[in-house]
């Protein structure tokens, strides 16, 4: 049911772990629904993401989207990272089954939540970044 890329990122997830004294940390999801993602960002003075790590509770797709999302934002500026959408993560994984699309949304939200935390810590505003929902199922 999963693409080879999803299986690869699930079996050999990239960037699992934590960053101590991270520039920004974001946690999204809900254990009740079976997925929680936590993203750690290390951002330098030029607003370039030097490192990104994750921890995820969830299914195969949740782990794979977290792993792919971390790879996609490393080396990008904060502004560029904002453009890493759930669709981009899904495309990079050669697609997800329809019931798993919410996992990619979770990955996008987790990155945004970590960037929001970074902006708050720095006392800056990142243009185009909205305050993330802590729980992507809030509206349901």
């Amino acid at each position, binding site marked *: 049911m999963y693409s080879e890329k999803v*299986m690869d990122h*699930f*079996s050999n*997830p990239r960037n*699992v772990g*934590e960053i101590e004294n991270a520039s920004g940390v974001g*946690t999204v999801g809900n*254990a*009740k*629904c*079976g*997925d*929680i*993602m*936590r993203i750690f960002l290390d951002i330098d003075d030029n607003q370039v993401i030097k490192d990104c790590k*994750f*921890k*995820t*509770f*969830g*299914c*195969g*797709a*949740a*782990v794979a989207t977290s792993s792919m999302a971390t790879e996609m934002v490393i080396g990008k500026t904060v502004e560029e990272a904002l453009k890493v959408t759930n669709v981009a993560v899904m495309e990079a994984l050669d697609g997800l089954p329809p*019931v*798993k699309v919410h996992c990619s949304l979770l990955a996008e939200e987790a990155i945004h939540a970590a960037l929001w935390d970074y902006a708050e810590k720095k006392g800056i505003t990142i243009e185009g970044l909205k305050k993330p929902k802590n729980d992507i*199922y809030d509206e349901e």
Partner: protein
Amino acid sequence: MILVGKLIYLDNAATTKVYPEVFEAMQPYFMENYGNPSSIYGFAAKSKKAVDDARKTIADFLGAKENEIYFTGGGSESDNWALKAAVEGYKKKGNHIITSKIEHHAILHTCEYLEKNGYEVSYIDVDENGVIKLDELEKAIKPTTVLISVMFANNEIGTIQPIKEIGEIAKKHDVLFHTDAVQAYGHVPINVEELGIDMLSASGHKTGGPKGIGIMYLRNGLKIGSFIHGGAQERNRRAGTHNVPGIVGFGKATEIAGRTLQERAEKESRLRDRLIDQILERVPHARLNGHRTDRLPNNVNISFQFIEGESVLILLDQQGICASSGSACTSGSLDPSHVLLAIGLPHEIAHGSLRLTLSEETTEEDVDYVIENIEKNVNRLRSMSPLYDDFVKNQK
């Protein structure tokens, strides 16, 4: 995706391998004795005899009469038939059905359908082990109650229900009693007379028989009409040309199941207990779901905190192990198994459940390999789980 040259099949509650003797017994009914049992000529007599013989084997196995066994297309059809025909046949008495919260969807979704069509359904709670609350069940009976339908044994957590007691309650109040015995048939002894069962559903493929064949036991004298309309097969109660190879296969599987039941149950329950004990000993923050002793001999269901079931299944698959889970991700919705929620598990723990269902082919080596890999997989997934991180940090 299997990365190792192994296949350890521990999903026998989903379906089983057909016994070689079953396959052999079925073969002549495809190309040699392919006649329609309903035909008049001598050539079809062999097919008719094969169907009659299978019916007798199954009737004997259940302590029923031959003319109380009806062949169907499977367990789901039998469940649908039982519920829909019972409320129709007894509509003068009332429109109320009593069932449990942990039934298979073949029962629950049929009940929901009936509710939409004006019938009333009471869903009885189960305790933390998944055993139906008999006092609640009895209290739910009303003058309009026509049917109690409670499964013999649960497909997810393996708990065996107090069928005899339910049969007594039903009889006392003059209510029909149906049991979905799809998971129990061939694995635990069933005698419809002793247990006071009026209707029973079973399926061939959960006990070494073929897929696509089921039975319904209907006690003689019940006002249960036809569900599939057409020809006069099955004494006008179930139309459709007999699935002769399937019926023969189900009969053979029943014969084998009856002969081996005790020995098989002893072997499986010994390995089941080894799995349960070892996993609970080696993996912290894990719990057994279902009754510890009143459970199917081949069922193990364990929840692991802080991880999600589908991830465990994928890792096990890569290790050559077939298992299943009650997590939302395997059900295609956001909610985990209704059975695990009914026994009181919080959502996040229900998501981390794993079901292993053994067969007589399962060996001690298999079990040890599975235990080792489960421990490894759970540790690996916990090491990347933010929930586990938070738990460890909060403990400090």
